[in-house]
């Protein structure tokens, strides 16, 4: 039976770069996938594109392409990535330039476009999912709306001979499903095959999270070599069989426990994992250790795809101002609490307006609140004040106020930090599939 090996070269936009080079050089892979597009990254990229029509793609595109193109081209590895963000066509042209500057020629680069559905979303008032409200409620604060595309346009680009496929918003597992559809010619209505392929894509899409990253807990779950964590390889066979593994000698581990954790990561109902191409069913998945750093995964299934596509809507959501200050040694907690009281009173006295506040003591209760946090005197405590405001200038005042603790607050406050940032938040809606029309365009290096 035919088998392909797909490497996962990045699990988020800022991910480490060398593991992908390792995969391209030593992974014996035919495809290398980079998942680099977070929930709100498209919205931020959209803003960059508005400022400069040649921008709006992933800021690390150049660094990643320069790092992996030589080995990928030498080994005939095809690359699939969502680093196109809000401007896949500009990303494709940029990649062609990079390839040329590396002396690589005859590379065919495809841009997948059509995920931008801002206009369609302006014409339909749709209910938001995952949070309460409707699109109308977001009004003119909406900056972007992008459909999660499925594997089809990416697979079509590969079929047409693309060496590199650059898309914008697409479902993360679909980035991996596309090579399978390309290599095996899977019909787009064989729901069980697409379901199995989605299991593979889901396990691979966060890169190091299935090879021992986001996992270690000393004494309970020890993992060696996290500083040189190997990124995963999925060995997928024509019938959707799957083995997860990694490059021999790299750090981390591929075990049933890492695979089980990643299988459920960001999953709600495991029997209904909604994808543009299929409703995947993870509920009957079984995992088995079949060798060192080799886990066999079986039992994925699927049902017909939904009639709607999930749309990620970026909208301007005010500003967050924040300030921090540290206290240490005897009485650190008491001085930190005094500092919070002072800032609280100052913010009132100086009329800083915010719709929501956080007053945290990092080291005491910042993550899970007072009730779950165990009592005990920590050696050091960090004060954190954050507030949501309508304007940037108001947000700036919050950090400024915390900083004044230096000369006006309790004894020994050090290491002030302040920030004020505008917030582009993300909401989701479902849009009828026929309102989305993906297109593929090629450029050659």
């Amino acid at each position: 039976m035919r088998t392909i090996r797909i490497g996962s070269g990045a699990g988020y936009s800022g991910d480490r770069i060398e593991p992908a080079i390792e995969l391209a050089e030593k992974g014996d892979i035919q495809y290398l996938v980079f998942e680099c597009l977070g929930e709100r990254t498209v919205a931020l990229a959209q803003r960059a594109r508005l400022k400069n029509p040649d921008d709006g793609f992933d800021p690390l595109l150049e660094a990643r392409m320069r790092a992996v193109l030589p080995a990928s081209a030498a080994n005939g590895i095809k690359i699939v990535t969502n680093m196109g963000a809000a401007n896949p066509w500009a990303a494709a042209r940029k990649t062609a330039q990079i390839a040329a500057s590396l002396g690589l020629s005859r590379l065919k680069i495809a841009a997948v476009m059509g995920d931008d559905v801002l206009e369609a979303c302006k014409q339909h008032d749709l209910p938001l999912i995952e949070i309460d409200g409707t699109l109308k409620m977001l009004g003119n604060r909406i900056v972007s709306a992008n459909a999660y595309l499925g594997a089809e346009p990416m697979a079509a680009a590969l079929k047409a001979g693309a060496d590199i496929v650059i898309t914008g918003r697409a479902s993360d597992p679909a980035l991996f499903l596309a090579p399978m559809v390309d290599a095996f010619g899977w019909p787009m209505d064989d729901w069980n095959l697409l379901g199995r392929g989605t299991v593979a894509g889901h396990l691979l899409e966060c890169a190091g999270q299935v090879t021992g990253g986001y996992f270690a807990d000393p004494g309970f779950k020890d993992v060696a070599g996290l500083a040189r964590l190997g990124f995963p390889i999925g060995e997928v066979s024509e019938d959707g069989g799957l083995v997860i593994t990694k490059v021999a000698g790299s750090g981390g581990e591929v075990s049933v426990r890492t695979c089980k954790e990643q299988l459920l990561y960001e999953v709600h109902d495991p029997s209904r994992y909604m994808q543009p191409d299929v409703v995947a069913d993870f509920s009957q998945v079984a995992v088995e250790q079949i060798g060192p750093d080799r886990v066999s995964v079986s039992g994925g299934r699927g049902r017909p795809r939904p009639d709607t596509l999930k749309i990620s809507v970026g909208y301007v959501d005010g500003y967050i101002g924040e300030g921090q200050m540290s206290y240490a040694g005897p009485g650190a907690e008491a001085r930190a609490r005094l500092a919070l009281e002072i800032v609280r009173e100052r913010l009132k006295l100086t009329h800083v307006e915010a719709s929501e506040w956080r007053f945290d003591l990092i080291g005491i209760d910042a993550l899970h609140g007072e009730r779950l946090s165990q009592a005990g005197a920590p050696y050091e405590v960090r004060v954190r004040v954050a507030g949501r405001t309508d304007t940037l200038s108001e947000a700036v005042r919050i950090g400024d106020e915390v900083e004044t603790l230096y000369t006006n607050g309790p004894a020994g406050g050090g290491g002030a930090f302040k920030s004020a940032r505008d917030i582009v938040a993300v909401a989701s809606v479902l849009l009828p599939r026929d309102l989305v029309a993906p297109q593929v365009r090629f450029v050659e290096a």
Partner: protein
Amino acid sequence: MAKLRDIAHSRTGDKGNISNISVIAFDARHYPLLCAQVTSARVKAHFDGIVFGEVVRYELPNIAALNFVLDQALGGGVTRSLALDAHGKSLSSALLDLEIELPPDHDRGAA
């Protein structure tokens, strides 16, 4: 009395204002014990003040795991939350602090 951390591992994921926390038995023999003691009501109570919505539990006997879906758990949503840990990544560690009653004949070495 043991902690959940002694018999299970856990990972948190986020989507919008919803957090999901997996609880996976190290040893499949402990799966019935997880089902009996780590109920959605108990998880909801554990996260009182952090999780404001419903807690739904899904069972995955094939991998000896439970998946909890916690609504209104992330300060209005990952992309807008004021929280230090906006993703709620650290919530799994809080859940592993749950107390678990092991049967008297429990062989800790097997865990």
